[in-house]
C-alpha cells in the first residue's frame, strides 16, 4: 500500500529583492521588488508502506520545503500529494494523528520540565486514553532507554538523550509515517548510532514508514534502503542506497597525521594526494579500485599513525558525481 504519493508538487516563494546599502533599503520602502523562488519544482514520487527513504540534497535544495508540504505545514503552489490517503494541507489535523515528525533543530520537549511531563501533555494533545498511552510510554521508555532521565528537566539532558526523547515523543501516538528532518545534527558518533538503530528498530518492528533528510551520508547508508536526491527543487535521482554507493560514492577522504614528515613521491594506486604538509596528508581514495586496508598498510610503512579520520563524500560531492555522470 502506498504511504506517500506526490505528483508535480511545486512551491514558489515570493522573496523581496533589495539592492545593497541604505539607498537600496530606502528604494525598497517606496517600491518593493519581488522575485519568485521555486523551492520545489515539479517533484513526483511515491513511497510504499514500511519503506525507509532518504531524501538528500544540499542546503536550499527543497528537502525541508517538501517535507513541510507533506506534513501540512505549508500550502503548495500547485501539485498533488497524499500521505496515508489524506491531502496534508486540506486534512492537516486528521493527518497529524497518523504521522510523526522530528525536526533536528526544533524541540517539542518543554525545556524546563522533565520529558515525562511532555509525554503526558502530548497524550492530552492527541486525546489518547490512559490505557493506551501509559503502556506505550513504558514500551518506548524501555526501547529508547529513557528511564534514567525521564524525571530530569530537559535543559539538563545531553543532546543525544534529548534527541532520543524527541523521537520517542513523535512515536507516542503510534504513527504510520515518520518524517525525520536532520535527526542527528550536532550529535556525536555514539549518539548518532543509537538514533539510527532506534529508527531502524521501529521500522522493522512496527512497520513505520520513514522519510529522512540528512546531510550525513552515514544516516542514509545505515537507516535507508532507498534514496532520493533533490537539487534546485528537482528530483535528480531516485535509486537504492546500494546503487548510490556503487555508482556515486566511489571515494573517501582520508586525513592522516604521521609521526614523521613524508619524504619523496607518495605512490599508492587509486589514491590522489590532495594536500601534504610535513607529516599531515589529505588523500582521496578511490574505493572502487583500492581497499582501505591497502591504503592503511601503505601509510603504516611511512611511519606511525598519530591520528586518522576517514570521511564519506558530502552530499554536494555526490550530487556533483550525479551531474558528472550525465543523469
Amino acid at each position, binding site marked *: 500500500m502506498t504511504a506517500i504519493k506526490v505528483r508535480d508538487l511545486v512551491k514558489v*516563494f515570493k522573496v523581496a529583492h533589495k539592492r545593497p546599502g541604505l539607498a537600496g533599503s530606502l528604494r525598497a520602502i517606496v517600491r518593493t521588488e519581488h522575485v519568485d523562488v521555486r523551492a520545489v519544482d515539479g517533484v513526483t514520487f511515491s513511497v510504499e508502506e514500511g519503506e525507509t527513504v532518504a531524501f538528500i540534497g544540499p542546503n536550499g535544495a527543497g528537502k525541508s520545503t517538501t517535507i513541510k508540504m507533506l506534513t501540512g505545514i505549508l500550502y503548495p503552489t500547485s501539485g498533488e500529494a497524499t500521505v496515508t490517503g489524506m491531502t496534508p494541507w486540506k486534512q492537516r489535523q486528521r493527518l497529524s494523528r497518523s504521522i510523526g515528525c522530528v525536526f533536528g533543530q526544533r524541540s517539542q520537549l518543554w525545556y524546563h*520540565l522533565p520529558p515525562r511531563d511532555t509525554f503526558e501533555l502530548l497524550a*492530552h494533545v492527541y486525546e489518547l486514553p490512559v490505557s493506551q498511552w501509559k503502556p506505550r510510554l513504558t514500551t518506548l521508555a524501555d526501547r529508547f532507554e529513557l528511564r534514567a532521565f525521564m524525571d530530569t528537566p530537559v535543559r539538563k539532558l545531553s543532546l543525544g538523550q534529548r534527541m532520543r526523547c524527541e523521537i520517542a515523543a513523535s512515536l507516542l501516538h503510534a504513527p504510520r509515517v515518520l518524517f525525520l528532518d536532520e535527526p542527528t545534527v550536532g550529535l556525536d558518533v555514539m549518539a548518532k548510532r543509537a538514533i539510527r538503530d532506534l529508527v531502524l528498530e521501529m521500522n522493522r518492528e512496527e512497520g513505520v514508514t520513514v522519510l529522512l533528510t540528512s546531510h550525513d551520508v552515514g544516516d542514509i547508508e545505515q537507516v535507508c534502503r532507498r534514496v532520493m536526491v533533490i537539487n534546485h527543487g528537482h528530483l535528480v535521482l531516485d535509486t537504492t542506497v546500494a546503487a548510490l554507493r556503487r555508482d556515486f560514492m566511489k571515494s573517501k577522504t582520508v586525513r592522516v597525521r604521521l609521526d614523521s614528515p613524508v619524504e619523496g613521491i607518495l605512490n599508492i594506486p587509486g589514491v590522489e594526494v590532495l594536500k601534504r604538509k610535513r607529516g599531515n596528508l589529505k588523500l582521496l581514495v578511490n574505493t572502487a579500485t583500492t581497499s582501505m586496508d591497502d591504503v592503511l598498510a601503505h601509510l603504516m610503512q611511512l611511519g606511525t599513525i598519530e591520528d586518522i579520520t576517514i570521511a564519506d563524500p558530502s552530499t554536494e560531492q555526490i550530487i556533483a558525481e550525479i551531474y558528472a555522470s550525465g543523469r
Partner: protein
Amino acid sequence: MSTAGRTGAVTSQVRFVWEHFKFNLAAAMEYKAGFVSQVVFMLLNDMFLLFFWWIVFRRVSSIGGWTFQHVIAMHATLATSFGISVAVFGNSQGLPRIIAEGQLDYYLLLPRDPLLHVLVSRSDISGLGDVAFGIVAMALLGRERLSSLPVLCITALAGAAIFTSFNVIAGTLAFFVGHAQTISDQVGNALITFSTYPEPVFKGAVRVLLYTLLPAGFMVYLPVRLVSAFDPFVLAAILSFAAASIAAAGWAFRRGLKRYESGSLVVVRM
C-alpha cells in the same frame, strides 16, 4: 455537529487550555524566586497605579461623573482581563514574532486548533499578579457592590477574550507584511493606555474609536457602567462583541495561515 458533540468539543478545548496552563505554571515554578517576585511586583505595580488615582480623587470629587469607585471598577476589570489574557494565552502578544520566525510549524503538526494551541503554549506569570490585584480591587469596591462581583467576573473574562483577540488580529498582520511585532505592540499598548483613563475624558471621534478599532469601551467602560447599574442589554453587547472578536481573530488567522512561509530557526520550547 450535534449539541452533545459540540458540548464535548468545548469540554475538550477547555481541558486542553487548563492542561497547558498547569504545565506553564509548573515550568514557571521551576524558578521559585522568579515566580513569586513576578507575581508580587506586578500586584504592587498595580496598587501604586490605584494609589495615584486615590491622590487625584482627594482633590477632585469626580471626573465627568466618574468617582473613585468607577476608577477602581475600571482597574479591577482591566487588570483581571489583561492578567487572564497574558497568563493563560501568553503567546498572544508575541504572535507576530512567532509567525515571522516560522515557529508555527510545531503547532501545525498536532491535531489541535493551531491558534488556540500557540496562544496557550506560553504563560506570562506576572499576569497572575494582575489577576490578584483585580480581586483585591473588586474587594475594595465594598460590600454595597458585592452584588456586582459576578458581573465583574463575567465581563473580565469577556475582556480577556477581547484583548486576546485584538492582539491576535494585530499579530496576524505578520502573515501579510512580515515584521509586525512593533506595530502590534503599539496598538496593544494604545488599547491598554486608553483603558486606564475614565471614559468621560474622551469625546467625539476618539469615543467612536474606543468602541470600534481600539475596543476599550467593550473591555472596561461598559463593564464599569454595569457595576453602577446593571443592564442586561449592555451585558449582551459586551458578550456579543467578545464572541465577534473571537470569530474575527480565528478568521484572520486562518486567512493568514495560507500565506505562512515557515522558517529554519533553531527553537526550544520554554
